């Protein structure tokens, strides 16, 4: 589903990242002065293991067009296994979202280490480009505003 008005569309992207790897990696992007799209807002979590799947849904319901979830590479987790737990959670979650027809292309999972400043910039730019191509997540937004639209009618 592409959007006719892509040039005017600025995707809203929210990134759920762990403190120790990806947040630090994004810090390194800054320290290295690598530029990337302004569309992303970062939420800092101690660990990807802490990220609740409902928060991702809340992001969509609140108007996000795309989501990034990123943490430490396998075996690099500050807490040893939080990212492994997260990985399982996302495997299961993705499969469920797909069953429901929720657009899993809009959630980008990645591992970005504290040393991968450039990878973070690429990840953001790439995600922005992907979401720009997909267009605003109107399907979801429309449902989110059900009370305003449909229920008033009933």
């Amino acid at each position: 589903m592409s959007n006719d008005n892509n040039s005017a569309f600025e995707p809203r992207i929210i990134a759920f990242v762990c403190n120790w790897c990806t947040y630090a990696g994004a810090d390194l992007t800054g320290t290295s002065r690598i530029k990337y799209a302004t569309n992303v807002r970062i939420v800092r979590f101690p660990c990807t293991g802490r990220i609740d799947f409902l928060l991702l849904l809340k992001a969509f319901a609140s108007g996000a067009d795309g989501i990034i979830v990123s943490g430490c590479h396998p075996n690099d987790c500050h807490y040893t296994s939080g990212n492994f737990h997260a990985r399982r959670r996302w495997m299961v979650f993705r499969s469920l979202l797909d069953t429901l027809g929720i657009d899993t292309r809009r959630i980008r999972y990645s591992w970005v280490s504290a040393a991968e400043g450039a990878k973070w910039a690429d990840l953001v730019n790439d995600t922005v480009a992907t979401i720009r191509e997909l267009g605003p997540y109107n399907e979801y937004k429309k449902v989110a505003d059900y009370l305003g639209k449909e229920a008033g009618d009933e």
Partner: protein
Amino acid sequence: MSKIGVFICHCGENIGATVDCAKVAEAAASMEGVAFATDYKYMCSDPGQTLIKNAIREHRLDGVVVGACSPRMHEPTFRKACAEAGLNPYLCEIANLREHCSWVHPKGDDTTEKAIEIVHGLVEKVRRNSPLTPIHVPITKKALVIGGGIAGIQAALDIANCGHKVILVEKEPSIGGHMSQLSETFPTLDCSQCILTPRMVEVAQHPNITLYTYAELDSLSGFIGNFEAKIRLKAKSIDESLCTGCGLCTTKCPQKKIPSEFNAGLGRRTAIYVPFPQAVPNKPVIDKEHCTHYRTGKCGVCEKVCPTHAIRFGQEDRIINEQVGAVVVTTGFNVLGTDFFPEYGYGRYADVITGLQFERLASASGPTLGEIRRPSDGKVPEKVVFIACCGSRDPAKGIPYCSKICCMYTAKHAMLYQHKVHGGESYVFYMDIRAGGKNYEEFVRRAIEEDHVNYVRGRVARIYEKEGKLIVKGVDTLLGATPVEIEADMVVLATAGVSNQGSEELAQKLHISYDPYKFFAEAHPKLRPVETNTAGIFVAGACQAPKDIPETVATASGAAAKVAALFSQPDLVREPLVAVVNRSAPPVFSTCVGCFMCQTACPYQAIEREEIKDRSGKVIKVVAKVNPGLCQGCGTCVAFCRSKSIDLQGFSNQQMFAEVEALLETTN
């Protein structure tokens, strides 16, 4: 929280040149709950911090957001400033306007808008912050060291020398470990026992060290600073207080044909025995499995001959409890036996031996008193083949890793052979020579160049016996895979270093993790190499992976330093960013339903069971409870808990939920 102060830092030009800081402050001022907002050139400077402190006092702020550099940089600075102004430091949050905004975006409205949104997200988060206080955990300043090899000896001595009590537990009758079995050590060729024995004696005599030999850990409970160890003292069948170590019993014992563990099976010992002459403690134990008295009820010679009547046949295992604050695990490693290698005869050929057995042959205290004689007939071998990487680096054998020490000890063995058997011929089959280490490469070169050891790069495919000779068939890959056949008198296999027997069981007792090869896992391979994921439990030496002596000793001292650092505090102070299981008034008590799935998700064993009882003491329900001494605050349990009964302080559900919604609010 509804009197939030927002402080936007220009960071000189770093933020100020890209983001319109005044506009951000102005926008922040109109956010719900914000009572004060301003911008300033350098918030982290003294005047900047003073500005924050004054604003906290003047406006009675109950929350602070500093828009500045990464929280990984100055979060502690600003939290401290808040604390100094009387605001709980955990009511301060940092909006990352530099690394995540001004440094990565061009100057413009979008960037300023993003800065405003970042601030908004954190304002909404901080409105839901709670004041937190650091967690204090008392510490029992006594350490438990498990394993009395060189690692355990070193760790015990280092900790004891810092003035702390140490309990050293060794499962064999004597401490000393593998190092006591070695002949000379690379790359200096100094006598292993000569450097080790003084340390063993020091352990025995140290006033801060309690030594339990012939003992094993039964169980460990508790948490950092507060462990309770149950130690099983196996029955030695002697009264140690009476035994003088005269040795009469061992000479009279009629059971003399028991393979000696110390001599790697190449020598014999008696049923009542001291493993080796320099043993510490130098007192015998009775090996119940082989003792005639224990097996048949007859004999009792030792009891008769003992001048001090120290023999106690009826003795039973004893379990003692020890309270300790830290544990160092130094249980070492083992080497594969020759029977693991079908291609080399499954251990059927007496003259195909392991490197460890060769050490005993080369040792002056060994069964041959240091002469190299082959086990089968005691002849001095004229041609010896050493095969490196036996098992190691062989995924087919399930051991993909490098055992690290074999290259060096094989060179040493060949060198020792050449020194002891003049005119002897030695061959080393190898895959690569790994001689990284101080003076290591030089050592190997000396073996090749000065002692004329023949290094052949290639694998040995097969060994078979033919007319009293061991035919070694291999290839030389440096000569274009030319087949090589050597008629050897003895073959020494550098078998892979593997984890010690029972290491998996021990890891489970300790709740520490281990790798697929059952070596214990460190908390972080680089930055926390001697810590485990269980706070207060440290590892050192070859129980982590095969290590040589210098590395073993270094990690042991490292672990000891960690213990000493832990013990140097009056109590353990921890960041309160830990998970908490909710509690409420009766009749609910907690919304936790007690499925304890969180326990299986926690990497730190931080989740305990708590019984909630009524006034009569009847258990009403069992709910989870997080031990704040163990919790590291990863929050995996929080995301897992179905009923949202666990929350993470500092990153609570309400905080994260509000931050996510706020970051997206302007789109609505």
